[in-house]
């Protein structure tokens, strides 16, 4: 089956007079890692917010596993199997790291209101299993020893990774990462790369990552989509995109691009 996991078809979003996305189309294949790059204001985050239902598309179609997800509520899209992290981290700051992850597992706890009132055997088994699964996810992202620390008290790099663990707890088919490497040190980017590649290899997870950090984007993506002013200006594997004159122009400006290409 070669049907794409996510298909974005001619999607446009405008905020008043500003066109944030202007007829962007792309397909994300199952088990692939797709990067979306572009200068500030290119519409990358807007695209992520349209996919997750925070913004509505004014035109075009978003199709996930053959189903149209335009105008669905964010929590329904999440339940279909799209999880995300946030550019400025949106953790539940007062809750411990492990509890943050357990919120992601919420849907998979099979006790109801009556069960939670009684705190009976089934309740305890569910909670224990969930806690164990959450702990395993924390270990996966290298936070095994930070389980009981309030999320807000973690250093920035760890908060980023906690967001990934929390997103994974929802057992997504598609993981969307909004600038996961921004502000990370080189070694941290390295370990993030390892985690993402491992997730794809072991669980067949499809990943779409938005970032500026080329050390991440170039190292892990199968395909890269480049946006500028809400339009797609290039697409292809890392090597192709790197040499695209359009991309060089978008990033470096007209003059520098002419110089770079000319030389």
């Amino acid at each position, binding site marked *: 089956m070669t049907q794409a996991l996510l298909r974005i078809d001619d999607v446009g979003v405008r905020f008043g007079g500003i066109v944030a996305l202007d007829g962007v189309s792309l397909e994300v294949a199952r088990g692939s890692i797709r990067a979306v790059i572009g200068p500030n204001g290119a519409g990358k985050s807007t695209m992520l917010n349209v996919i*997750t239902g*925070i913004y509505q598309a004014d035109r075009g179609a978003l199709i996930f596993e053959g189903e149209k997800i335009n105008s669905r*509520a*964010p*929590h329904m899209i*999440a*339940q279909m199997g799209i*999880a*995300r992290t*946030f550019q400025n981290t*949106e*953790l*539940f*700051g*007062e*809750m411990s790291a492990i*509890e*943050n992850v*357990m*919120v*992601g597992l*919420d*849907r998979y*706890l099979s*006790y109801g*209101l009556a*069960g*939670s*009132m*009684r*705190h009976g055997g089934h*309740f305890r088994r569910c*909670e224990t299993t969930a806690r164990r699964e959450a702990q395993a996810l924390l270990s996966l992202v290298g936070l095994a020893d930070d389980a009981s620390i309030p999320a807000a008290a973690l250093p920035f790099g760890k908060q980023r990774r906690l967001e990934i663990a*929390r*997103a994974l*707890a*929802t057992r997504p088919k598609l993981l969307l990462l909004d600038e996961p490497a921004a502000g990370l040190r080189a070694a941290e980017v390295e370990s993030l790369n390892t985690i993402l590649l491992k997730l794809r290899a072991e669980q067949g997870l499809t990943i779409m990552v938005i970032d500026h950090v080329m050390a991440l984007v170039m190292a892990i993506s199968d395909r890269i989509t480049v946006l500028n002013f809400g339009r797609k200006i290039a697409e292809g594997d890392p090597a192709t995109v790197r040499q695209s004159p359009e991309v060089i122009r978008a990033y470096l400006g007209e003059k520098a691009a002419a110089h770079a290409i000319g030389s």
Partner: protein
Amino acid sequence: MIARFLIYGVGIAAFLAAPHLFAEYHLFQFCLIAATALVVLGLVVVTGLAGQISLAQAAFVGLGGYGPAILATSWGVPLWAAIPLMALGVGAAGFVLGQMTLRISGHYLALATMAFTAIVQLSFIHSDPVTGGAAGMPVPPLRLLGVTLSNGGQLYYVILPTTVLLFVLVRNVLQSRFGRALTAIRQSETAAEAMGLNVLRYKAAAFASSGFLGAIGGALLSLLSTYLDPGQFGITQSVYFLAIAVVGGMTSPLGAVIGSAMFILIPDFLQSFQSYLGLVFALLLLGFIVLRPNGLAAMGPRLVEWVSHRHRVVRR
């Protein structure tokens, strides 16, 4: 496990011994604290946990008081059945009110819930034939298994167990995935939605439980006061309940008990001060908001920490 049974045993013993040790007036006060704590527990759920500021609590309390009284006097429904029935109805009203949170939040939500309280109070005043209008109406005494319970000493046997039961149930729910979900929603609705939580439904459910608990608490309060005066169910009363929650501690059920005990016992100690009581409460509220926003309940663990720290230092 043994320690747990010991605590239960001591609790039951204390419950049974209290009527023999305390005067009826004190038992009446225990009941008052318990019933108020139930009302405030509703606020702990909706405001403390879910983060939705509600000034509807006095309306829920009023409905919980008037509903059963009217059902009993006009339709002859026994109070023991009318009280939980009405509480379920008020819970449903709370759920509907909670749907508002789809469109409004923060200060606007507080204002909208305030308007709800005003509307409910006005309808008490203007429905003379059933509510007795501005003059109010008497509450028939609770009859249970052929026994009429009319004073604090007798109601004690109903009010205390009801309160304890509801507190245990609510605490259990809050220490489950539902409590986690509400806490998560308070801290980031966007992230909670991205985790697949139906935020609107959770918020509405929080309003529903605050309505249910407020109505039960209101019914119990009406049994104690034996008279319903519509003047008691206004916006000021909503603010009073909110003040109790703030002083006691918004985020824990224990805070509801501590706050209620403070606000009901203080007037007793300050009898000669009676006319300045409002000022005392206002200063308490202000002091806690500025200095201890997490309330008295949050000071307990810190006190233990401090003592054990001192202890360690001394030993060293």
